[in-house]
């Protein structure tokens, strides 16, 4: 068995002193797609943000190794440079910062870190146009300030566009499917599937079993009250769709 890309061990995280994650362990191999499901408030978003280096998440116990190194010791931009990408559930609106200018700066920052040559404006525009078509995004959005005034769907497409341009080794999608209509859902799923490769892994956080019909996971985990309550294969998602999370509450109480 190859060494895991991501190894989360007994992770405890608190926000403002409240325990949110209470001992999460998860091992992700290269080439795998993992889905994390669970009711609201179970800690799914917190798990995503801890991995991306968000502010305000205190790791009180446990560890996270990424390619065998301590991930938690890295600054957020260092993580991105090493191939971690989080598609935000609520992408931040940034007035005054041109979307294309930002994308080029991000792509070149990551390329520089990988030892690749930076792209000039012309090469970058070409690459961007190609990817924009794949996510079926209005090209006009590239000339607008980053996410400002974008609809919910446009923001999600812009996240997927960033993911495609940055070509991460580990992509984490925090409810990227929520609020999307069926066509947009399929486009986002196609984008994710296009990224699948033997040396990459994807962690999909979702509420909906439907998204997993498009992005078929190798493993499904249920996060409940800060712990992984169940893990299983593809069928676990269907079971949850049918039975809900209620029985987990009963199991936890028992």
């Amino acid at each position, binding site marked *: 068995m190859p060494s895991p890309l991501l190894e989360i061990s007994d992770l405890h995280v608190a926000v403002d002193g409240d325990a949110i994650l209470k001992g999460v362990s998860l091992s992700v191999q290269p080439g795998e797609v993992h889905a994390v499901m669970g009711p609201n408030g179970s800690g799914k978003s917190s798990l995503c943000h801890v991995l991306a280096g968000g502010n305000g998440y205190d790791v009180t116990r446990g560890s996270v190794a990424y390619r065998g190194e301590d991930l938690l010791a890295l600054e*957020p*931009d260092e993580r991105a440079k090493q191939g971690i990408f989080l598609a935000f559930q609520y992408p*931040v609106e940034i007035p005054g910062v041109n979307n294309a200018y930002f994308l080029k*700066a991000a792509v070149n920052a990551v390329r520089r870190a990988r030892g690749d040559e930076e792209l000039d404006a012309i090469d970058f*525009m070409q690459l961007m146009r190609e990817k924009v078509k794949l996510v079926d995004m209005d090209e006009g959005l590239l000339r607008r*300030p980053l996410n400002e005034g974008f609809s919910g769907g446009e923001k999600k497409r812009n996240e997927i566009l960033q993911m495609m341009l940055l070509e991460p080794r580990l992509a984490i999608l925090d409810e990227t499917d929520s609020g999307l209509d069926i066509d947009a859902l399929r486009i986002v799923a196609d984008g994710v599937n296009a990224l699948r490769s033997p040396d990459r892994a994807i962690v999909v956080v979702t509420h909906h079993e439907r998204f997993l019909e498009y992005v078929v996971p190798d493993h499904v985990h249920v996060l409940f009250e800060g712990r992984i309550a169940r893990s299983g294969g593809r069928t676990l998602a269907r079971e949850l769709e049918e039975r809900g999370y209620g029985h987990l509450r009963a199991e936890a109480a028992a």
Partner: protein
Amino acid sequence: MPTGVEHYRQEWSAAHASLPGARVGWIDRARREALDRFCGRGFPTPRDEDWKYTNVRPLERRAFRFDPGPEGGAEGGAEPLPSARRLDGLDAAAVLVFRNGVLASSHSGTAGTVPDAVRVESLAGMLESDPERVEPFLSGGGGHNAFSDLNRAFLAGGAFVSIGRGVQCDAPVELVFESVGESDVASHPLVLVLAEADSAATIVEHHLGAGAGTKLANPFTRIAVGERAAVEHHLLLEEDESTWHTGNVEASVAAGGRLGSNAVQLGGRLVRYGIDVSLDGAGATVILNGLYVARGRQHVDFHTRVDHREPGGTSEQVYKGLLDGHGRGVFNGRVLVHLDAQHSDASQSNHNLLLSPDAEIDTKPQLEIFADDVKCSHGATVGQLDERAVHYLRSRGLGEDTARALLTFGFADDVLARMGLPALRRHVERGLAGALPALAGLPPMDSANGI
């Protein structure tokens, strides 16, 4: 040598008889009345509510000399400032360059594309040759503060721009005011812009200074926007670190007319700028955008006043400030909605970014509403960068310095984009990147592609 008010009275006594139009009754009267008002109330002090945060006492203690000299003359032997400091790619229809308030004919001209009904010429010439044309706009008004009075008392020249009825002047008119040379020189130029009904024009007023000498730049701009006319006024203040700038704009907008006032201040030791706009006709629109930057020991003070006098007017103000080092900023935005101005829509926002712990800003919105069926809003913020935005950019691989530089730049560029003049925007973007250490980490930009 006397200082303060007495100094200016003596200067005036010696100069007034030889000023252009001195033998024209209303001109002489307007100058005398302005001088009397100025001498009567003296320089403002921090005890005046409007000058609470801006102390001009050091300015009062100096004796600035007023020496207009002949137009198109030797220009005091001063070399023109390098053209690199001018706006690149503006493609102006006409350019007038003033040095210490005096028209330098050898550097002025038209591009040959100016429509016949557009006049861009020396105001000093107008005061002699056609004073009746400018009388309605210069015989009264102007008494906003000590400095606008001083400007009127020493009215000696400046620019006259008029756009005839129904004429669209697409290319901008560029007016350059250079403050150069020795210490204690004062200039009081006046810009008069008359846009007749259904006309359109863009005016760029660029003030720039050079040299170590302490100077006083005290311009006054009067803009009259006719019915359904549209004027874009761009003001760019790039004075040097030893220049005090105390300019004022007074504008009136007739029914259905539209004024865009875009002010950018990047330089100057102390800048106090007043913008006073009156919506005089029904359905007038006024869009005011401003960006000011104070760093080192700079002090910048923007005072705006918008009077809604007739029904259905719209005014929208967006002012942003970047304060670095020991820079000090003041913003005072006053909106008056008069009794008859029903269905007015007035909004005002002022956002400030403090880039250093020693920088300061005082911001004060003032809404005075006398009509009952109006929509008014205001908002002011003072703060640092949004940490969620910093994190978002960092999560895409941008280093912390780069992320902060990008957000700081975006904060300013947001209002520059609203101004709608690409040549000015590019010029100011470059100016900002050079002026603020906080922007040192900005990713390289390919200006041809805007990325």
